[in-house]
């Protein structure tokens, strides 16, 4: 295990402690166990609160998207493991500024069960809650079952759009609508080149021999739709991009935002090599790339691999993408 850790059981606690020590002006702990964090200025009175959360091991997901123009609070689970319903509920209270709360997180069984329970508790407090699930991984289910797909890197777009809407004062219904559309108009597919090791398990979560790739892998190492010998970056980009264009029904004249995301161990250089090919394909198809994001947005500890996400955009969605957003992990546009 090539890990810079102490006690594996304290991995998440120490990590969160480090985050709070590093960014005390931007994030605060809501609960004494540090498993619920909120924007330093939360709740924002009169604005919709956005609560996210999920397992740890995906930085900057999830806690990295708590900030101005993004989410309001986050519930922090163990590695690859849901936060508890109490934690989700505490995050809800911390985020509620009187205009209701949107739950925006990835479509995973454990998370859904725990957030649903938290929503029941919030209802007792008269906090209106709406839920939108990130479900962008086209490799996890065919289009007919799009709502059952797992959520991966594309949730970044939903955070960005919903966060901008909440920041400008949109109603809960409107913020939820914008988030839901961002999820529905987004598609992602990933490739894994090496497994990840859970600190507490100390062993790879799955086997992937050197020189093989898993196309369609999930961000916990869930198997994808094809395993075979590793191919060239261009060929991989072809495999990842074509299904997205197809799934979103994109064609000549359409506009998209592109996200090439690293899963952890893959160098930024390689992500740009992948982007180059994705861009070529979209150019050839007459699809305009309106915005580009390349980097690590949703990782899987030290997994080697990458994902490509496309978000169909119109002027409204572009304006939301371009709105300022500032967290300790993601910063763009003027800071007010």
């Amino acid at each position, binding site marked *: 295990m090539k890990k810079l850790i102490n006690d594996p059981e304290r991995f998440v606690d120490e990590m969160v402690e480090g985050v709070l020590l590093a960014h005390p002006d931007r994030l605060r702990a809501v609960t004494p166990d540090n498993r619920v964090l909120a924007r330093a200025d939360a709740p924002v009175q009169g604005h919709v609160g956005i609560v996210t959360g999920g397992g740890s091991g995906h930085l900057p997901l999830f806690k990295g998207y708590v900030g101005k123009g993004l989410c309001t609070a986050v519930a922090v689970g163990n590695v690859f493991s849901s936060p508890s319903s109490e934690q989700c509920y505490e995050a809800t209270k911390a985020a509620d500024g009187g205009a209701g709360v949107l739950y925006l997180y990835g479509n995973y*069984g454990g998370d859904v069960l725990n957030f649903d329970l938290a929503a029941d508790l919030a209802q007792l407090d008269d906090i209106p809650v709406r839920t939108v699930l990130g479900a962008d991984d086209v490799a996890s289910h065919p289009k007919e079952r799009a709502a059952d797909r797992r959520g991966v890197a594309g949730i970044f777009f939903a955070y960005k759009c919903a966060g901008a809407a909440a920041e400008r004062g949109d109603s809960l219904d409107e913020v939820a609508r914008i988030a839901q559309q961002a999820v529905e108009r987004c598609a992602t597919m990933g490739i894994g080149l090496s497994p990840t090791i859970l600190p507490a*398990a100390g062993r790879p979560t799955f086997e992937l021999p050197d020189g093989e790739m898993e196309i369609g892998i999930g961000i*916990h190492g869930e198997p994808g739709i094809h395993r075979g010998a590793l191919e060239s970056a261009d060929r991989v980009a072809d495999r990842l991009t074509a299904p997205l264009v197809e799934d979103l029904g994109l064609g000549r004249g359409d506009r998209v935002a592109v996200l090439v995301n690293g899963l952890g161990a893959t160098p930024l250089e390689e992500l740009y090599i992948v982007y180059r090919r994705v861009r070529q394909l979209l150019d050839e198809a007459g699809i305009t790339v309106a915005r580009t994001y390349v980097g690590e947005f949703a990782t899987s500890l030290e997994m080697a691999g990458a994902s490509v996400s496309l978000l169909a955009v119109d002027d409204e969605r572009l304006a939301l993408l371009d709105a300022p957003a500032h967290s300790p992990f993601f910063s763009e546009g003027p800071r007010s």
Partner: protein
Amino acid sequence: MKTPELKRLLVAVMTGMQQHADELRALDAALGDGDLGITVSSGARAVVAALEDVPDDVSPGVVAKSCARAFATANPSTMAALVAGALLAGSAVWDREEVSYQDALDFAEAAATSISTRGKSQVGDKTILDAMVPAIEALKQSPGPAAGLEAAISAARRGVDESQALQSRRGRAAWLQERSVGLADPGATAFLRFLEEVERAG
């Protein structure tokens, strides 16, 4: 069975369950994300720790509730949430000083119903229910505890084996689609191991 005996049984079973962490991790790694080993081992450890603080004079229902809370928060995954919900549902039918074989049956049925409702799942979806439901059926058909447990273990084992041929329809494993065929469901296997540990402890 009264609370002190129930607690002793649970401590033994939950101690035994921790030995299956590796197998469950491997099964869950093949069909899901590989964390079921941690869920079960840290959950079982949390239950053992929680039972230490449960006084002997509470009802068996309260014991089940404590277990539920401990298991739910140790590593709150799908399995943890479903099992905790199931224990809570079961505990509701256990509001008495002593529980009978029939009470155990009622508990198990309430638990299975809870999982089915919260998980929107049924037998054949290749989940824990594929072991649990036939096991309960076997319990119901048996004259008493000893024969019942043996029959339940056989039924659960058959459930695990037969569901291997099925495609997973719920949870992470569903993403695998056809590729899930041929692999045993981790949750169903965990339930089988649980019954086996009950037999060993009893």
